């Protein structure tokens, strides 16, 4: 097929015209996404694959620098499983996830329902409740650490004044309370995000639905369980999945408040992976543990993406 352009016009064509016809035209969209593709491959796909592969290698600073990295099958995973701290960290992670998700979802829902009503000073309340979410996580964690201080902390002072405690208590230094104490900070920090998602969903419920329910005599708990929650179920599920992901990735809170201690009482899989990597300098074991976490997060993210698609289709 001959070109629609005259030979005279062809002579004056800019170089980019090569992408307007034939093979150039077919290549054009691929070239446009190529930079993004290369970037994603380099900073996401390659490190992830490399990380997974590292989980099957004898990878320490020593083997790495001496060029003695070898494939050792599943030995790193076996070492991780044989480590009693791993099972403590696994239990703690399950507890940490469960407590955070349940508390943040319940509190987030309560706050969203409260702010969805025409209460006084609603905008002030909303801003105040969002405050923990906008505070940088390191600042928040260090502030809470001082609040929990066993000799001058305000938490202790308040609890003593209201009669809950007889004397100051080292919340972060006691094996029975350290994980609880960190969880409280995490709930405080994470709840506003859940509230924001649920509040947006509540405001999307058509007024006609609520009016019809009211005319049918639905009030209080019945209205909540049979009308409101079904209307926001998708947003609720998305918030739940996101909370799961954000909680498992919340390394700052635990590391900066307790560093997984005392005596591993607040150790989670994430802090343990860090410990394997930077205290033992064993990247193989750290990668093996990170791979386990990765598999869990992929599963959870898949559910999240499925829910997002459902919402878009709805």
């Amino acid at each position, binding site marked *: 097929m001959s070109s629609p352009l005259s030979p005279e016009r062809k002579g004056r064509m800019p170089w980019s015209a090569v992408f307007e016809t034939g093979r150039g035209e077919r290549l054009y969209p691929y070239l446009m996404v190529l930079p993004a593709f290369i970037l994603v491959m380099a900073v996401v796909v390659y490190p992830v694959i490399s990380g997974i592969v590292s989980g099957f290698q004898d990878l320490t600073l020593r083997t790495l620098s*001496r060029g003695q990295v070898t494939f050792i099958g599943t030995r790193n995973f076996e070492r991780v499983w044989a480590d009693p701290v791993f099972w403590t960290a696994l239990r703690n992670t399950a507890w940490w996830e469960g407590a955070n998700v349940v508390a943040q979802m319940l509190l987030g829902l309560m706050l969203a329902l409260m702010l969805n009503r025409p209460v006084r000073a609603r905008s002030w309340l909303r801003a105040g409740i969002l405050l923990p979410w906008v505070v940088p996580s390191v600042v928040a964690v260090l502030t809470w650490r001082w609040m929990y201080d066993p000799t001058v902390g305000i938490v202790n002072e308040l609890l003593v004044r209201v009669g809950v405690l007889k004397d100051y208590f080292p919340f972060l230094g006691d094996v029975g309370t350290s994980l609880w104490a960190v969880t409280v900070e995490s709930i405080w920090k994470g709840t506003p995000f859940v509230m924001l998602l649920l509040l947006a969903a509540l405001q999307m419920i058509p007024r006609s639905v609520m009016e019809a329910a009211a005319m049918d005599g639905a009030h209080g708990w019945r209205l909540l369980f049979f009308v409101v929650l079904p209307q926001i179920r998708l947003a609720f599920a998305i918030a739940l999945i996101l909370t799961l992901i954000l909680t498992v990735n919340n390394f700052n809170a635990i590391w900066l408040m307790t560093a997984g201690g005392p005596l591993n009482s607040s150790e989670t899989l994430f802090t343990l992976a860090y410990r394997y990597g930077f205290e033992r300098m064993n990247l193989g074991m750290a990668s093996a543990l990170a791979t386990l976490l990765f598999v869990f997060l992929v599963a959870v993210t898949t559910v999240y993406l499925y829910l997002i698609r459902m919402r878009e289709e709805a």
Partner: protein
Amino acid sequence: MLKLTTRLLRTAACALGLWGAAAQADTITFWVNAPMVPNAQAPLYDEIRAFEAQTGHKVNLQAIPFQELEKRLFVALGGGSGPDVMAIDNAWLAAYADAGVLADLTDRTRSVASQYQPGPLASGRFQGRLYALPWYTNNVALFVNNDMLKAAGFSAPPKNWTEFRAVAKAMRGLGADKYGLAMGAGRFGVFQMTSFVWQNGGELVDDAGQVRVGEPAVAETFQLFTDMYRVDKSIPDTVLTAQSWDEVFAPFLQSRAGMLISGDWTIGTIKRVSPNLNYSIVPLPAGKRAATVIGGFNLAVNAKTKSPAAADLVLFLTGPRSVEAMRKADRLSAHMTATTAEAIAKLPETQRPFMSQAAAGRARPSIAIWAEVHSSILSPAWDASVRGLVTPQAAVQKAASEIAAKMK
């Protein structure tokens, strides 16, 4: 796959701005812990300029925050990159030397090795070879709140363990919120106790590589501090939670604890936070023998450096000039000439006690897994003992068997 992994670490190093450091032979890239260059007037800049003028080489000085330095070195050196010359905490040295990422300086420094203080010099050795020269040194002494000491009825700081415990107990009697000793949890507590273990005739891991943590001398030291917390109540509850030097210092800075076992890095914090605190720095209360744990930084050379002058920079900065340079930087030189009476007299009053006990300074065990032993074995042992979860004897014996298993 090795290449792939190495590339990954190089990618990480690139992302951190660490790559390419050792690539230019005419420029020496030098990583230092950021506190050594707090501002543009830091004495280190003068030293670098003097080196450049004398040798014609350029030095690319990069300050890395202390908390980041170990991780960045790990990533960079693991990826076959990193600086030509690096400041390295003497507690980390064995791990890096064992990994083969540091240049062996034994032959190069043979003629000058005797010019350094023995304790700090030993902290640069691993398996008989020298991988670093001591840049500046420190050790721990006893900080005493003079007002609390007087109020407790004592005219002089404690000179032995019996007096030490008695003074702490008397300070506890000064009020409901008054204590004798500020002490840290986990690895901070272990660091503070290490000198006492040696003073008591004990060892953690001896020079022959034998694990001796389970011996009575170590258990007795754990017992002393455990009893001071649990029986005498002379240590505040921060011993269960303090995980940074700031938190360890806090009760002492607030005049709630009358004594503190620490090094010269505490002085700056006191000046900044409690400038009116009336305190003295005295040698540690003596045990069966004199001993104080050595801290500080060494200078090492990257095994993969392409700069032939990298070792020259190390020798220049740690040499006789370091005495004056470190005095200006409020640090203690590890050069032998820094221990003369004349040099000590020039030091600020607060630094003199540290230098005067430098001869009793001992480096921590030179084993590759020391960081792991300290953080993951000895720290939990101390945490369990001070909480009364196990006896001090059981804690150290369990730690000993764990260390022995790791070292196999």
